[in-house]
């Protein structure tokens, strides 16, 4: 039987919902918040409950926003004929940093992962299909990760979107910019050979 008060137990148990946090880490975090940083704890609680209340998924790109349609999707200066599909908001941020893309986005908030039971229903792929089929999108750029799961997602989307008459492209992969073959991993070089292009 546990000797600690139930609200402490509840906090420790609640912290375990974070990825990579087991019982030990959760206990350490709870003691830290309660003993050393009560202001931080209060701020965390407020931020969490306000985010839960205010944030929702953008109707068009599925990323988190406080409005029905996020600012990026509502920006008239962006090209509505291009739609770039990424797995997570962090991926979108990376592509934005390149300042090389002026189209719109769709954020899947995950990837297909058959062995983890993540399929089209869990990813809500029908929302993406509806978005890409809105009439203004001409090209869909698949920018999912180059992992097996990212590839499986890209392949699935390519066939679904291609069947709907859209031009579908995929980010290319290969030796990194400024990379020297001598210092590149052999898997990357092998795949770059498979996917070589004529010049």
């Amino acid at each position, binding site marked *: 039987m546990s000797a600690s008060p139930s609200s402490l137990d509840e906090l420790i148990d609640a912290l375990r919902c974070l990825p990579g946090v087991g019982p030990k880490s959760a206990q350490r975090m709870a003691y830290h918040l309660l003993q050393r940083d009560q202001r931080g704890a209060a701020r965390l609680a407020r931020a969490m409950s306000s985010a839960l209340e205010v944030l929702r998924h953008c109707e068009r790109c599925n990323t988190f926003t406080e409005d029905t349609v996020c600012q990026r999707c509502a920006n008239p200066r962006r090209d509505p004929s291009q739609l770039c599909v990424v797995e997570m908001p962090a991926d979108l941020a990376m592509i934005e940093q390149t300042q090389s893309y002026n189209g719109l986005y769709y954020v899947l908030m995950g990837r297909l992962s*058959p*062995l983890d039971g993540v*399929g089209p229903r869990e990813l809500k792929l029908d929302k993406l*299909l509806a978005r890409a089929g809105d009439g203004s999108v001409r090209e869909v750029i698949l920018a999912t990760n180059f992992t*097996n799961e990212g590839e499986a997602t890209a392949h699935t989307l390519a066939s679904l979107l291609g069947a709907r008459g859209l031009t579908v492209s995929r980010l290319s992969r290969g030796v990194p910019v400024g990379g020297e073959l001598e210092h590149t991993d*052999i*898997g990357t070089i092998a795949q770059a050979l498979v996917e070589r292009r004529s010049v």
Partner: protein
Amino acid sequence: MALKQRIEQQPAWVLHTLPWRETSLIVEVFSLEHGRAALAAKGARRPMSALRGVLMAFQPLLMDWSGGGEVKTLIRAEWRGGQPLLTGRALMCGYYLNELMLRLTAREDPHPQLFAAYEAAVSALARNEHFELVLRRFEVALLHELGYGLALDAGEDGAVRPDGRYRYIIERGPVAMDADGLEWVDGACGEDDLPLSGQTLLDMAADDFSRAETQIQSKRLLRALINHYLGGQVLQSRRVLKELQEL
């Protein structure tokens, strides 16, 4: 008691990875001499980890690990090379192979012949060979190798007539229709019956899945057997594939 030992340069394939702690992975591998094993890959999820691009399924690897517990510690993993990554439909078939391996094999139970069959199946998928045939061949090898006894001969003398008609009884094997005292009427067998022609049985025993009838009947038989041995577990890869086809 399991001895703490160090394994070196072991040919292996990653079947699945799970995030573990902040920056690490638990990697389920299938290796040549040690069968299936769970390895902790410390720091493998750090941005600059050299293991990031290596610990992927469907790539032939050489691995070093040590430890005596249920989960060993991965020391090194390198790419053996010689095979492109799976893409498209082949990748989906690959997930099915891996899920069968995860659900039907036990940890630390070496199966060198199954390892060879797995390696052959993944290479065939990478070459985009006829996917259904690759899967059937692997399923037969898996059931044989795990001792689930896929009986392909019938009756007391065991001889199968190519023009004979049989039905497969799970845990027993094929039974000739006339020997069972049942009259065979086309289309009259129920959902649970597994009708097979003698030629299908002979083809399966000879690893030849080129005939259309063999493909249809063996697919049904192998699916029923695999479902039986899964004991009610649902194959997620099969469910996801089915949902994708419905979109």
